Structure formats: structure tokens, C-alpha cells
């Protein structure tokens, strides 16, 4: 199965790069969606089936559509996004490259991870049944609390998104 991993990895990297480098924002969106699909493939490889499904629905289905929607709304679906100077791009590339190098270098000698592995094999840990149980027992508090997050995000988005509040001149 290793080659499947490498294939998916290659795909995700290529699409990710394309997303970053594409001139047209819409192309970027599409490339990102493809990247997400590749990542979903990884999830399946990793025995995280439910996660893969949710991932596709939430990201590819919801978030990216939202992005696309906004892009269209703001009429930005053209190739003429202003570009930064090459100098800057090179600088940025070097910086990002340095980040990668230092990140990887700092994670040296990761072999010891193996010690932590549990010997139990849990082929079904990524299934909805298992995850649901976890979510509503151990993680019930964060689950509830994340509602605050949604509420806040909703109120916030409405607050600054809605048009015309004549009675609030500051807005």
C-alpha cells in the first residue's frame, strides 16, 4: 500500500503548490479542493473513514463553496490578481523553505515515537460509532463549548456582514 501513500502525497503536494502558484483565484480554489480530496484519501488510508467523509463534506463541500461564492460575489475570478515582485517572492520562498528545513531539523530522532505505540490494534477506531462515543463522553464539554464558538461566529458574521444599519452611524 506504500505506493498508494506516495501517490496521494504527490498529488496533494502538486495540487497544493498549484493552489499557491495559480494566478487565477478560482483555479486556486479548485486546486485546493483537489488537495482536500487527496487528503481525504490519506484519511482513508489511515483508517479514519468517518473523518474522511466529514472532511469532504465540510471542507470541499461547505468551506470551499463559501470561498468560491465570495470570490464570485466580489468578482475576483480573473487572472489579473496583482503580483508581488519577484524579489519578494524569492524572499518568501526562502523563508518558507527555511521554515520547512528548521521544522524538519528540529524534529530529529523521531524513532523513539515507536515506544508510545499501543499494542492494541484498533481497526475500528475511526468509525462513527467509536468516535461518537468518545465525543459524547470524554469530549462532551468541548463539544458543548464549541457551541459558544459557533454562536459567536454567527453573531459576528451577521454584525459586520449585514448591510445598512442606519440607526448605528458608527457601523
Amino acid at each position: 500500500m506504500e505506493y498508494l501513500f506516495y501517490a496521494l502525497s504527490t498529488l496533494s503536494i502538486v495540487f497544493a503548490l498549484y493552489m499557491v502558484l495559480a494566478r487565477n483565484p478560482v483555479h486556486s480554489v479548485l486546486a485546493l479542493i483537489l488537495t482536500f480530496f487527496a487528503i481525504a484519501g490519506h484519511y482513508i488510508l489511515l483508517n479514519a473513514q468517518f473523518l474522511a467523509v466529514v472532511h469532504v463534506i465540510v471542507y470541499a463541500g461547505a468551506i470551499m463553496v463559501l470561498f468560491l461564492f465570495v470570490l464570485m460575489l466580489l468578482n475576483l475570478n480573473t487572472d489579473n490578481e496583482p503580483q508581488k515582485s519577484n524579489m519578494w517572492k524569492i524572499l518568501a520562498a526562502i523563508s518558507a523553505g527555511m521554515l520547512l528545513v528548521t521544522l524538519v531539523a528540529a524534529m530529529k530522532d523521531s524513532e523513539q515515537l515507536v515506544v508510545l505505540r499501543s499494542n492494541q490494534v484498533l481497526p475500528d477506531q475511526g468509525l462513527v460509532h467509536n468516535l461518537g462515543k468518545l465525543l459524547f463522553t470524554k469530549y462532551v464539554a468541548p463539544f458543548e463549548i464549541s457551541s459558544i464558538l459557533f454562536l459567536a461566529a454567527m453573531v459576528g458574521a451577521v454584525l459586520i456582514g449585514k448591510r445598512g444599519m442606519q440607526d448605528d452611524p458608527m457601523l
Partner: protein
Amino acid sequence: MFSFLTVFALAIVVLFAGLFGLRKHLFWILATGLTAAFAVGIGEWIGYDPAVEGPKVLAGMLSFDYYALSFGAVALGAMWLIALMSGFSFRHLNKSLGDHYGLMLFSLCGAFCLFSYESLLMLFLGVEILSIPLYVLAGSQRRSLASNEAALKYYLMGSFATGILLFGIALLFGSTNSLDLQGMHTYLAGSLERPGLFYTGLLLVFMGMSFKVAAVPFHFWSPDVYEGSPTLVTTYMSTIVKMAAFAAFFRLASTFGIAAEHWAPIVAGLSALTILVGNGTAVYQSRFKRLLAYSSISHTGYLLLGLLAGTPGAGGAMFLYLLSYVTATIGAFAVFQLATGDSGKEEISVFNGLAKRNPWLAFSMAVSVLSMAGIPPLAGFFGKYFLFAGALAHWPWLVVVALLGSAVGIYYYLRLIAAMYFTPADDDAHEIDVPWAYAVVALVCTVLALALGVAPGYVMGLV
């Protein structure tokens, strides 16, 4: 825990009250609710018994111990003062007042998570609950370009930093097989040889927190956002948000104290850099909010010393410092709001001759500013004292840097004093009408700044 729930409930009540047009009563609802939450918090504090109840509540996710409860009470108190100031700041708001209050309270909920988290998941959620309403609040003056810019900058950089934080958490998870602090403890205690993965994760998490507390080089957002946001939001950000972030940061640092030799030098470096850049840049500022932003960065630098102390008393020192810093900042912003009024002027010159016009206001401001500068016997001095003293044994050079930074700090704090006391007022300046709410804020802040100096040890024992 119950004060946390009270705040959450209050947020929803306020939101709906706003929706149903109870504009006039919103403030009182808010005030009552906050008072109730505060009272509940105090009750919890008094009733807290580590032996009986056990420290973990909410399934090991949040733990409302003395530390969390004390910080929570301070945050509620600060929120209460900010609410008092809102009557004036938000006077132009009509329908959306409830939304503003609601968002602030939501954010406060995030702060509560940060005070009490036991799991990195809650840390992450707390950070987000704290931040997301703030992105909105920063941009709440929708017509103001500055406000827009502040919101976008805050949002973009905040999200970026969240990415870093998450990557770090992921690495920690991978290397320790755990997400909660208890698990980390166990892991740390059990293994002497720890992989680079672990330290990298830890460092990335620290970077994420550094962003929240605005430590150099992750501080860039703060001056711009502080300046662009509505003043009240800036007040909120520079007090409650900073306090929450530091409370969380300290919890983290004390958890990983055993591994300090791998992160302490880096934090020390960050601290030194932060002190230098914060103080150094503040010297040049002429706009008040920006000045306070840089000063706040420098305070971050001092507070980072508290992470290094590695002594049990360090939490108390952080608490004292944050308390003194929060009161002083609120006091300063309150006076600033009054001084600048509707003019929208941000220059320090709005304070010119304030001592002649409103001597008590000027006095309050002076106390706040001197407390921030760390002049004894004000609260800020003792905050600094305990932080510096804690770090002195292991980081003498850093303490020297911090002292030098304080000396530089005096320069710009005194400029404010000089403006109020030694510079004649502008021609059109007149005596400012002080609304009662502001009088209360100024009084509370001044009294606290003076009183904390009398019994700092007691305050430190609270956490």
C-alpha cells in the same frame, strides 16, 4: 464553573435582549449579570476545597481551581469596569449594542476556558472563542478604514498563528500520546529521553501563545490592531485578552517546567527581545493607543520572565502583575476616552493641561501610568518586583535587560505625565464632564493601584 456558565447565559440573555429592543436596559442587565457572575465566582472561590471536590471538573477538560477562579474573578471585575465605560463608548450604538455586549461576553467565555483548561483541546478552543469575537469587534466600526484594517490584520495573522499553534499541538499529541496536561505530566515524568518532535511541538505551541500575548517577533499585529480598533475594544484586548493569554501560557509553562532547559533559553531570548523592541519603539510614539500598544508589548516581555521563574510563587507573581497591569490599563484608557471625547484625536496632546482642568482625572491617570512604569509603592512596582526577583537567580542578565527596559519605559510614561501636568492646555480645551461611570472606573483603578502596594503578598496568595 458556575461563574463561567453565568457569563455564557448572560451573553445569550444580552443577545436576545438586544434583539428584542431592550436597548435602554441592556447596560443594567449586563451589570447585574456581571455582578452575579462575580458573586458566584467569589462564592466558588470560597467554597473551593481541593481535597474534597477534586481539581478536575467537566470531564478533565476544565479545572476551576484557585488559579482559574482568581483569574476569572479579575476578568469579571475588569469586564465590569469595561462595561461601565461602554455606556459612553457605545452610546452611538442602537440595535447592535446587544451584539457588541454579547460578543464581548463570548470572548470572556473564551478567557475562562484559557484560565482553566486541562486539555490542549480546550486551550485551542479557548483561544478561538476568545479571538473570533474579537476579530469582529476590532472591525466593528465598519465604516472606519482603520477599524477594517485592524480587523483584517488581526484575523489573518491570528489564523496563521492558530495554524502554528495547532501544528505544535499535533506534534505534542504525537509524541506524548495525550492531549491533556495530566497526560503530559505523566509523559514528562516517565521519559528522560524525549524526541525532537516533542520539543518542536512544544516550541510551536509556545509560538502560538507568543502571538496571543504579543511577544516579539509575533507582536506585529498588536500596535496596528490596538490603534485601529475602537478604544473600548482596545481596552478589552489589552487587558482581558492579554491576561487570559498569559494565564494560559503560564499554565502551559508550569506544566512543561520539567523540560525547561529546552525552552527556557528561547523564552528568555523572546523576553529580552520583547522588552527591547516594546520599550524601544514606544519611545517614538506620539499616539496614545499606539503608545500603550508598545508599552503593552513591553509588559509582555516582563511577564515572560514569570514563565522562567520556575518557582511555585511565580503564578502569584504573574497574577499580581496582571492585576496591576489590568487596572492601570483600564484606568489609563478611561481617562483617555474622556480626554479625547468625540474629537477622535489620538495624540498624546489630548492630555495637555489635564491637571489644571480635571486634577482628579489627571491624578488617576498619573497613578495608572506610574503604576505601569513600576514606581513604588504602586501596584505595578510589586508586580515587577516579584517577576524580576523570581527570575534573578537563573537569569540575571535578563533581569538587567528588564531593568534597563524599565528605565527606558519611564521615558515615555513620563511624557504622559508631562503632558498632563507640565504642558499648558490647548486653547480650545475645557474642563471635561466626567460621567459617573467613568468616575467609578477611575476611582477603582486608582484605589487598586495604590492599595495593591500595601499588601501584595496577600494578593499573590490568592491563586
